[in-house]
């Protein structure tokens, strides 16, 4: 090859490197490495002066390759690549040698060894860089349409922020109406705002926004593509109602003879009909026919809704519609499912009538719920005189979910307050710790103490109806150790409320695979960085928000929704995305079509072309991991920027002082290239 001119720069990094490694000696020594035109050391290479040093040398000395030996590529490779680019040198003709983490920091106790190791690392980089090829970043445009999956408070917020900025959004929601769990709540802590009152205006805005395409009763079936360029397939399930004709008048559900328990919106505490609108403020306002329970689909009879519909909007034969659309970014805000309390038999949920789950109780105290907001026992009539609220059900428990579900303590206090407000009942909150961390939460806890709530610090062992002593007959007995007095107590109550944990959706693992993101062991979606980036994921262009990422309260959820929107808007307004050219290429002329690489690719980036019977890498999806390069039995896949020659050269460079397999002191570096 033509003579290359390599510039070598050894960074002191203040004391970080120079404190252990003899950087001046290395710089001096490196002058004798093959192809090295200039070799010097400098205090802070990443400073503007350091960068200018590189740029000047490129221009004035005609450097064709640059090596900076300093910190890690993660930290400053982009910095120096940009410097090269400014000076007119292709940024991929640059190589970063890590002599801080890999030499100075790990061998701080042996400066001599650290210096020797630094030489080897530098030699490796110099040997490699002469084999680098100029590469061009791939620039892909970003489709300005966004898909938001999940129409709860997180998804609603994200959709509104992006739509208000003037960009189109398609909001996909599985249920017949948006609103999510927040639409079920009665009041929200700590302000005791009515949940529906603060939520429904936003739902209305979403329903009416010119930039938001609302697809309810719909599910995403397939996702293909990459950041800025996703092609998504959405199944719009058949409501069996022609919405162009439907006015939402309600005649159909008022006439429907089939009543079933509403396990969705009413959390199993109330009933709905087979044709139903989930709740009065539903957006969109159209009903839906539940095919599983509708008499017509079972026996062919009834059709009452059809008879009474004034506009003839009922359409029993309506079919699902599958729609394909292109979007640039995706935000997953799919929310949570509530822990099924039947998994804890000793609490009696599902067996003892007056044990209620938290969501059941929300529906109960809700003025538009099955009891009109009255707090009553399962008989629907009797007011309880005593209520026990049990914290940490299904959470903070290695038998079920190890994590703390975050909001249950506050929700439990809220329930206690509502019971005080609406009844004369004695309230017992049984807890392990009181988690009231955020704004106005501790003050709310104080308020509940002032209201006369009995706080028993103990995790309830069991709830039973087996009376043991007088006063327990006909009651539910909560057996708990009151740890603050060190004694077991049996507290007879009329009603028990279980503060159940928030769990990931039952299909969250499947969904994560569908969107190419990860899931934690618990099942919540995995963020890019738990501290600094809870919004992005490892898949560019796919973001997460709300409880789908982990248990949190409404303010945090709303915040995350907005954050996801901001991140998406960054991409949209920039208009394009740069992709690293570090990727694999298949030599199609020599590909035998064995397809071994196809399924090995973790990013699904290899397509098989049927006609030509060869495989081809999609450069936009390829992340350059190298799996296919290693796996190809014919060795005809090359990894750009990680070619065979480059890697072998680096190895030979690192082993510069091991001629013929023996350590040769004061040896001359290898002069022949691989």
């Amino acid at each position: 090859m033509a003579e290359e001119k390599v510039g070598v720069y050894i960074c002191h990094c203040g004391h970080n490197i120079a404190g252990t490694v003899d950087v001046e000696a290395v710089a001096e020594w490196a002058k004798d490495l093959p192809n090295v035109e200039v070799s010097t050391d400098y205090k802070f290479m990443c400073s503007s002066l350091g960068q200018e040093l590189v740029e000047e040398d490129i221009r004035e000395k005609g450097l064709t390759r640059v090596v900076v030996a300093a910190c890690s590529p993660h930290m400053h490779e982009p910095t120096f690549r940009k410097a090269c680019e400014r000076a007119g040198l292709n940024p991929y003709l640059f190589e970063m040698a890590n002599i801080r983490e890999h030499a100075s920091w790990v061998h701080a106790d042996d400066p001599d060894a650290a210096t020797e190791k630094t030489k080897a690392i530098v030699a490796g980089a110099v040997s490699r860089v002469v084999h680098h090829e100029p590469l061009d970043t791939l620039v892909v445009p970003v489709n300005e349409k966004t898909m938001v999956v999940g129409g709860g408070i997180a998804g609603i917020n994200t959709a509104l922020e992006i739509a208000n900025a003037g960009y189109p959004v398609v909001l996909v929601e599985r249920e017949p109406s948006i609103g999510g769990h927040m639409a079920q709540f009665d009041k929200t802590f700590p302000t005791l705002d009515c949940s529906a009152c603060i939520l429904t205006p936003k739902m209305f805005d979403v329903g009416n926004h010119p930039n938001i395409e609302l697809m309810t009763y719909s599910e995403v079936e397939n996702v293909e593509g990459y950041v800025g360029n996703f092609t998504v397939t959405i199944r719009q399930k058949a409501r069996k109602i022609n919405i162009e004709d439907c006015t939402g008048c309600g005649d159909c559900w008022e006439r429907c003879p089939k009543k079933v328990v509403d396990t969705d919106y009413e959390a199993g505490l109330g009933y709905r009909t087979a044709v139903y609108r989930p709740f009065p403020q539903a957006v969109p306002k159209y009903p839906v026919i539940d095919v599983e329970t509708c008499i017509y689909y079972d026996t062919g009879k009834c059709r009452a809704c059809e008879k009474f519909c004034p506009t003839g909007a009922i359409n029993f034969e309506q079919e699902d519609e599958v729609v394909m659309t292109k979007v640039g970014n995706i935000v997953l805000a799919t929310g949570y499912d509530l822990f099924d309390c039947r998994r804890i038999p000793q609490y009696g949920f599902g067996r003892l009538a007056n044990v209620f789950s938290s969501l059941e109780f929300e529906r109960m105290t809700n003025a538009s719920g099955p009891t009109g907001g009255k707090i009553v026992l399962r008989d629907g009539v009797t007011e309880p005189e005593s209520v026990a609220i049990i914290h940490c059900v299904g959470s903070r428990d290695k038998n079920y979910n190890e994590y703390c579900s975050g909001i249950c303590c506050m929700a439990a206090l809220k329930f206690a307050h509502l019971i005080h407000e609406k009844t004369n009942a004695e309230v017992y909150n049984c807890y392990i710790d009181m988690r009231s961390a955020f704004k106005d939460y501790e003050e709310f806890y104080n308020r509940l103490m002032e209201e006369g709530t009995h706080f028993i610090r103990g995790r309830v062992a069991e709830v039973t109806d087996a009376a043991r002593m007088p006063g327990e007959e006909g009651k539910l007995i909560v057996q708990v150790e009151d740890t603050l007095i060190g004694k077991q107590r049996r507290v007879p109550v009329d009603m028990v409320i279980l503060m159940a944990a928030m769990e990931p959706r039952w299909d969250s693992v499947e969904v994560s695979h569908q969107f190419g993101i990860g899931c934690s062991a618990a099942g919540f979606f995995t963020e890019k960085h738990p501290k600094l980036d809870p919004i992005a994921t490892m898949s560019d262009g796919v973001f997460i928000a709300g409880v789908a990422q982990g248990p949190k309260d409404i303010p945090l959820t709303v915040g995350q929704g907005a954050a996801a929107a901001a991140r998406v808007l960054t991409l949209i307004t920039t208009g394009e995305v740069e992709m690293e050219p570090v990727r694999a290429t298949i030599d199609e002329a020599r590909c035998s079509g064995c397809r071994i690489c196809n399924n090995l690719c973790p990013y699904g980036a290899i397509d098989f072309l049927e006609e030509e019977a060869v495989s081809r890498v999609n450069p936009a999806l390829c992340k350059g991991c190298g799996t296919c390069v290693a796996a190809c039995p014919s060795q005809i896949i090359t990894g750009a920027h990680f070619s065979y020659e480059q890697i072998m050269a680096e190895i030979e460079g690192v082993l510069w002082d091991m001629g013929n397999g023996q350590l040769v002191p004061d040896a001359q570096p290898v002069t022949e290239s691989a």
Partner: protein
Amino acid sequence: MPDDNGKYTYYPGCAAKGSSAAYEMSMLAVGEVLGMNFEEIDDWNCCGATEYFSINAIPAYSLVARNLALAEQMESDQLVASCSACFLNLNKTNKYMGKHPDLDQKVNRALAAGGLSYDGGLTVRHLLDVVVSDVDQELIAQKVTQPLSGLRVAPYYGCMVVRPDETFDNQEYPMTLDHLMATLGATVVDFPLKAHCCGGHMTQISEDVAFELIRRLLHNAAEYEADVIVTLCPMCQLNLDAYQNNVNRRFGTDYNLPVLYFTQLMGLAFGLDAKELGIGTEIVSANKALAKIGQVEEAPRKKPARRDKKALPMPGEM
């Protein structure tokens, strides 16, 4: 899963030869009907109950391990114990030796002093487990010639069969014995304290504690109008049966609840002779209760009550 010919290695435990002889008798009789082969370990020793572990650990494990070592030499790798405490000790020792190499070494060193060793090849199971999990429940139904209809049976599990290891049934609210009794045609009384402790050896240490625990169980079963309590552990049977009169005296109650082993009821349902099943050895006589079998007319199937319009649905209701 058992060997092909339904063979099990059988560890009787001390009670089986004495205070719970009826359990072993009925077990063997029922086993014959169902084609289950129980091969008793030759020269087995006491498992130490809940006593030895309270005094010295390594000898306690070794006491149990001698039985494991002897059982390992037998044909079947399924070691069955009918007593819950024996089951727990055998199972615990087997598991801990498998999980903690340090313990395994020490115990095997002790066994070596007796010329024995244990390699961990056994699966330890409770008798109820093999009856409900290995035997086709259809077969059991077929063998029922005298269904226990009219008999209200309260299935009592006690603690050590379902805890601490979750193997074949729910640890808080087990149901397998309930289902078995239903298969025999009995009316199953699902009383909430069915897996609560009978007190074990507390009868010897503190009558205050023990009698109260026994009283709770009797009270609960009686509240639910059981005719007979069915058990699967000799200790539970002893406590509930032999001490019932003591409990009555102390608390001024008049419980008259016979306590039988599930194998005895199985035998009766299979049409076997009551004496062969050891019936009559119980302190609180079962005669009156058993006379109800086939006498009481089954209550006509009630039409499901019209749903009370005001009542709220229960979880899981459709």
